[in-house]
C-alpha cells in the first residue's frame, strides 16, 4: 500500500499518460475490426429439410468441404417454409456482417430473388441451385451472385427412359409415375420421357399417373395399374427413386420383383441397392454430395479472389451440372466409392461438371 497522499492523488492522470492510454485504447478498440476483417468467412448451407435422404447427403457434402477448407459451416433448414428460409439467411447475414458464402437450394422459385438481393446488399457471396426465376441472372449481381446450378430434367428423363427401353428389348408397354404436377423437375422429366417415346415407336405408354414423389402413393398406384394392364406392363418409368421403390414393393407383393425393370432419378440408397440386385435397371443422380460441397467451393473461391465472377463465361454462371448414371455396368464401383465410403471429390475442380449453359 502507498501512503495516504499517494492514495489521494492516485486518480490524477498526467496529460502524457492520458494520451498514451487513449492511443492504446483506440488501438485495442480497433483490434477486433482488423481481426474481424482477417477472419475467415462462414460457410452457410440453406436447404429444405433434413427429413429426406437427398438433402441429408447434401449436408454431408457441405460438411466434407468445410472440413477440407478448414472453415466454419452452418446449415439452415427452411422446413418447406419460404419466409423462414429467407429470414434465417438474413439473420445469418447480420450475424456474420456479410462475411459469408451461401449455397442455397431455395424452397421455391420466387425465393431466389430476395435471397440474392439480401446477399448482394450485405456483400456476401451466393450460389443458388435448382430454383430461380427466369429473369434473375448472376451477371446482374456481380460479383456477389456467383453461379446458378441446375440439372437438366429433360436429359435425365430421356436417359433413364432409353435405358429402360433397352432393358426391355426395345418393345412392349410401360407405365410412368410422375412427380408433383406443378414442379419444374416433374414437368421436365416427363418431357424427356416423351422425347424418348417419340424416338421409340415400338414402346407403348400404357398410362401416365402421378404419385407426388412419394413411395407410399406409388405403392397403391402400382397395384391399381397392375390390375388394369396386368402382364402388358413390361417396364416402369418413375420420375424419382422413391416412387420407383414404392412401385418395386408393389411388384414384390405380386412376385414380380426383378421381372419388370424399373428406372428412377436421384440415386438414393434403396435404388442403388435395387440396381445391384437387378430390380432397377438404372437411376440417375445429380450427386447431392457434390452439390452441397461444390456450391460452397465455387462461392468461396470467388470470395477469396481465386477468380472474378464477372470475367467468367456464361456457362460458368448458369449451368447444367453433369448427372451421374448408375446402371448395371458401374453400380459396384459406385457403391464402393459413394455408399460404403465418403465420396472423394476434387474440390479444386470447380468447373469439371459443367455440361453447358442453361436453356433460356
Amino acid at each position, binding site marked *: 500500500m502507498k501512503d495516504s497522499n499517494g492514495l489521494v492523488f492516485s486518480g490524477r492522470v498526467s496529460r502524457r499518460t492520458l494520451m498514451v492510454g487513449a492511443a492504446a485504447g483506440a488501438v485495442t478498440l480497433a483490434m477486433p475490426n482488423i481481426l474481424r476483417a482477417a477472419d475467415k468467412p462462414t460457410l452457410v448451407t440453406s436447404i429444405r*429439410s*433434413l*427429413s*429426406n*435422404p437427398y*438433402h*441429408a*447427403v447434401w449436408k454431408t457434402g457441405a460438411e466434407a468441404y468445410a472440413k477440407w477448407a478448414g472453415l466454419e459451416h452452418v446449415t439452415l433448414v427452411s422446413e418447406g417454409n419460404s419466409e423462414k428460409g429467407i429470414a434465417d439467411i438474413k439473420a445469418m447475414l447480420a450475424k456474420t456482417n456479410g462475411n459469408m458464402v451461401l449455397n442455397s437450394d431455395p424452397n421455391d422459385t420466387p425465393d431466389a430473388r430476395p435471397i440474392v438481393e439480401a446477399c448482394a446488399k450485405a456483400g456476401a457471396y451466393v450460389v443458388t441451385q435448382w430454383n430461380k426465376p427466369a429473369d434473375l441472372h448472376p451477371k446482374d449481381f456481380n460479383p456477389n451472385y456467383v453461379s446458378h446450378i441446375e440439372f437438366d430434367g429433360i436429359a435425365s428423363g430421356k436417359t433413364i427412359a432409353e435405358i429402360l427401353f433397352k432393358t426391355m428389348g426395345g418393345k412392349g408397354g410401360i407405365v410412368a409415375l*410422375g412427380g408433383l*404436377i406443378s414442379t419444374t423437375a416433374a414437368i421436365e422429366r416427363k418431357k424427356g420421357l416423351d422425347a424418348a417415346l417419340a424416338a421409340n415407336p415400338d414402346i407403348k405408354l400404357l*398410362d*401416365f*399417373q*402421378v404419385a*407426388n414423389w*412419394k*413411395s*407410399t*402413393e406409388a*405403392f*397403391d*398406384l402400382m*397395384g*391399381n*395399374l*397392375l*390390375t*388394369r394392364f*396386368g402382364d402388358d406392363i413390361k417396364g416402369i418409368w418413375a420420375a424419382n427413386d*422413391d416412387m420407383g*421403390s*414404392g412401385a418395386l*414393393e408393389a411388384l*414384390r*407383393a405380386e412376385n414380380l420383383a426383378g421381372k419388370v425393370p424399373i428406372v428412377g432419378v436421384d440415386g*438414393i*440408397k*434403396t435404388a442403388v*441397392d435395387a440396381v445391384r440386385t437387378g430390380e432397377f435397371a438404372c437411376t440417375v443422380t445429380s450427386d447431392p454430395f457434390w452439390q452441397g460441397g461444390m456450391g460452397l467451393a465455387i462461392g468461396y473461391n470467388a470470395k477469396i479472389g481465386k477468380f472474378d465472377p464477372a470475367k467468367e463465361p456464361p456457362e460458368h454462371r448458369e449451368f447444367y451440372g453433369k448427372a451421374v448414371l448408375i446402371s448395371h455396368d458401374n453400380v459396384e464401383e459406385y457403391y464402393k466409392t459413394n455408399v460404403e465410403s465418403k465420396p472423394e471429390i476434387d474440390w479444386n475442380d470447380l468447373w469439371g461438371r459443367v455440361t453447358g449453359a442453361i436453356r433460356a
Partner: protein
Amino acid sequence: MTIQTEPLKSVSDIERTTLMTFLPGRIASMLGGRRWRRLAPLAVLVVLCILITIANPNFIELRNLVRLANSAAVPLTLAMGLTFIILMGSIDLSVEGTLSVAAMVVVLLAANDSNGNDYGWWAVLAAVAAGTIMGLISGLVQTMLRIPSFMATLGMWFIGLGLSVYMLGGSAIRLNDASIRDLALHRFLGLPLAVWVAIGAFALAAIIQYYTRLGRHILAIGGDEDVTKLSGVNVTRVRIAAFALAGFFFGIAGVLAAAQLGQSHAVIGDGRLFAAVTAVVVGGTALTGGEGGVVNTLIGVLIVTVLANGMILLGISPYIQQTVQGLMIIAAVALSLDRVRLKIVK
C-alpha cells in the same frame, strides 16, 4: 356450341322449394328418412362397384379384389383409431406423426441396414407401444392442460415427425427382417397377412364399440358431454383411454406401412391423415360426434379405396382425380348427414 336463346325464368320461392326437394338429402328423407340415410354410404359403395365393373370388368377379378384389400389395410387400421376420436366429437391430427414414429421404431429395432439390432417381433410390440404412448400423451395433454384436441394433437403430429427425422437421420432405412416383411409378402387363404391384421383391427374396434363400456361412453360423450358427465361417467378417463386406443391402432398401421414398403422414412405418413379423415366422414360418422361408428368407417375406407382404384381402371386423367375425390366427399356427406337434426351448420 349452341347458344341458349331462351331467356332464363326467375325462380320463385315455391319453385325453389320444389327444387330443394330434389336434393339427395330430401330424396333420402322421402324414402323413409333416417334408416335409408344410414344405408347411404353402403348404397354409394355398391353403385360405385357396379358402375366400375360395367366400365371395366377387370374390377371384379379376384386379383384386383385382393389388391383392393391390400391397399385398404393401412387406411382401415388408421381409420379404426380415428373413428373413436371423431365419435367423441374431437379430432386427432397426430395420425401421420404417430404412424411415422411406429414405423421408425419397428425398423430401427428389427433387422435393418443401419444398425445391428435384431429384436424380431419385440420390435413390433415396441412400435405398437410407442404409438399407444403417443396417443396417451395426446389424451393427457388435452385433459390435464385443457388444450383443445385439435391443437394438442397438432403438436403431437410435429413432435412425432421431429422424433422420426432425428432418429432416422433423414434417410430411408430398410427393413430386412423377413418375418415382419411377410406381413406384406406372405399370403394366407389368398390374402396378404396385412389384410388379416387389418380385419383383426376392425373386429377389435367393433367389439370395443358395441360390447364394452368404453365404447358406449365414447359415443355418449360425442352425443352430449355434459349429460354424460352428470350421469357419473369419468369423462377425463374415457378421453385419455380413447386417445391411447387411437394411438394403439396408429401403431399397428405404422408396422403395416413399414412392412409393405420394406423401409421407413420420416415422411412415410404423408397424406394419410387426409385419407383417414375422408374415410371416416364418407362412411357417415359425423364430425360433430355421437353418430356413426366403425362399421360406417369400414364402408368409408372401401369407398375411398374403390374410387381410387376405379379411377385408374377407367383411365381418368391424374389431373382431375383429386377433383373427383373432393366431389365424392361432398356428395357422401350430403347424403348421410341428418340435416333435420342439424340446427346449426358451423
